[in-house]
């Protein structure tokens, strides 16, 4: 099993979720994060002072899948989340040694 951790632009969440659902991925966990990167931040004004905000809002999607699904999942996310502009984000793949479904205690791929 692998954990596929992707950082995407917030407004792409719906499309990525739909793409994953189509692949048969049944679960995922999402959180709000902020990212630094090559993408330039925006300027804010505050009584005459200017600030550059370079921590930008992003969405992190974590989904654990069986080994054989990794490449299709990466493909789906890449396609759904890309706009071609800087800041589209990253996908990282990490090894997962075990997964357990709390409700039933099942483990392994069937727990996903």
């Amino acid at each position, binding site marked *: 099993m692998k954990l596929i951790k992707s950082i995407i632009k917030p407004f792409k969440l719906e499309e990525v979720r739909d793409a994953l659902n189509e692949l048969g991925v049944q679960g995922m966990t999402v959180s*709000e994060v902020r990212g630094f990167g090559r993408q330039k931040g925006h300027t804010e004004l505050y009584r005459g002072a200017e600030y550059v905000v370079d921590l930008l809002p992003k969405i992190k999607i974590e989904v654990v899948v069986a080994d054989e699904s990794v490449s299709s999942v990466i493909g789906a996310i890449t396609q759904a989340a890309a706009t071609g502009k800087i800041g589209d984000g990253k996908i990282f793949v990490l090894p997962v040694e075990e997964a357990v479904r709390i409700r039933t205690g099942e483990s392994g791929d069937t727990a996903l």
Partner: protein
Amino acid sequence: MRFRWGWAIPSAALFALAAGTAHAEEALPELSAGDTAWMLTSSALVLMMTIPGLALFYGGLVRGRNVLSVLMQCLVSAGLMSVIWVLVGYSLAFSGDGAYIGDLAKMGLAGIGPETLSGTIPEYVFVVFQGMFAIITPALMLGAFAERMRFSAYLVFITVWLLLVYAPLAHMVWGGGLISGWGALDFAGGLVVHMSSGFSALVAAIFLGKRQGYGSQPLPPHNLPFTVIGAALLWVGWFGFNAGSELAANGIAGLAFINTNTATAMALLVWLAIEWVHLGKPTVLGGATAAVAGLVAITPACAFVTPIGALYVGAGAGVLCYLAVAVLKPRLGYDDSLDVFGVHGIGGAWGAIATALFIAPFALEGAWGAQLLTQIKSVAFTAIFAPLVTLIILFVMRAVMGSLRVEAEQESEGLDLSQHSESAYSTGAGSTLAGAFSQDS
């Protein structure tokens, strides 16, 4: 409200000359534009106490998943009580001369027109000013059973309670009934509004049982700034409540106004001092709570004491309500979620007794001791009458409608979703997680 039997008449005479618009030689009062202006303003201020004042005060104190249910209960009290008040409530409280309750002669405001006066103001203004009291009083109670009552049960409860507890008490104290006959003083509602709601709320809280997790886990306020805004708007609006109860813009209204401010200020200082000594830090929630306690306590007394007297009334409220909330409640173990009993029940009872304790010479009609006994008697009456009738109402309701409480799962999900299918907040700016819905219809 200006106490209309007994004390009020000499005071009216006292100010008749100073009032400028009153003509001593005429038997019938005329409309005073000045008094009317103040009463229109006061009516608006008293509505502001409930929405958004009380709504925010209470709404900030509950958890984020129940805030809408609290706002809704305040809002719907304004809706439901206003309609009932016009249809029958006003008549039951202020028409007729039964000892316990009025009559139905003014149902639907029959017989009242734009030219009908009540003293120096249009009766419509008196009706709507009193209607604002009938909105806030039932809403005060919701703090006691917040985060767990079914919305439908709430609607039935406040409706029946208005008719069987509030209207009779208003009649007995202000409408010429039993308690006014005793000579009890209750200028703006220490008995009618605060004791009645505070003691009834205690019964309701116990009847409904504790919230999930009460005692074992803290149930912290989700937005204290809301609570402070609410307390501030209550403070501001209370000037309409108290000084408006004179039903005129005169020296007694001025006295009621300055006393309201002074007692509240003093209660706040005393409460913070106690917290500082007792807990090591003065808290904002303590300050906000103390302000409301001071406002409650001065309510019955505000036209009968001097500003120096108001300092004592406020100080007493600070001490007693603190004890009720921080010592008594944990000892007895009931879950009065937002301390309606500790603040309104205790504060109202203290205020009603303090009215006699600190009464100013110009307000005292008979003997001081007799007045004190009368006040105690009226406090005792209210402390029995209101919760007793409330208990009967609750038992009958449960027999008819089943449990008044939401199901356990609805409670842990929160009342906003389970009762109203809404969430108060979508997460902060820039976030889109809250927008990640799929549309259904």
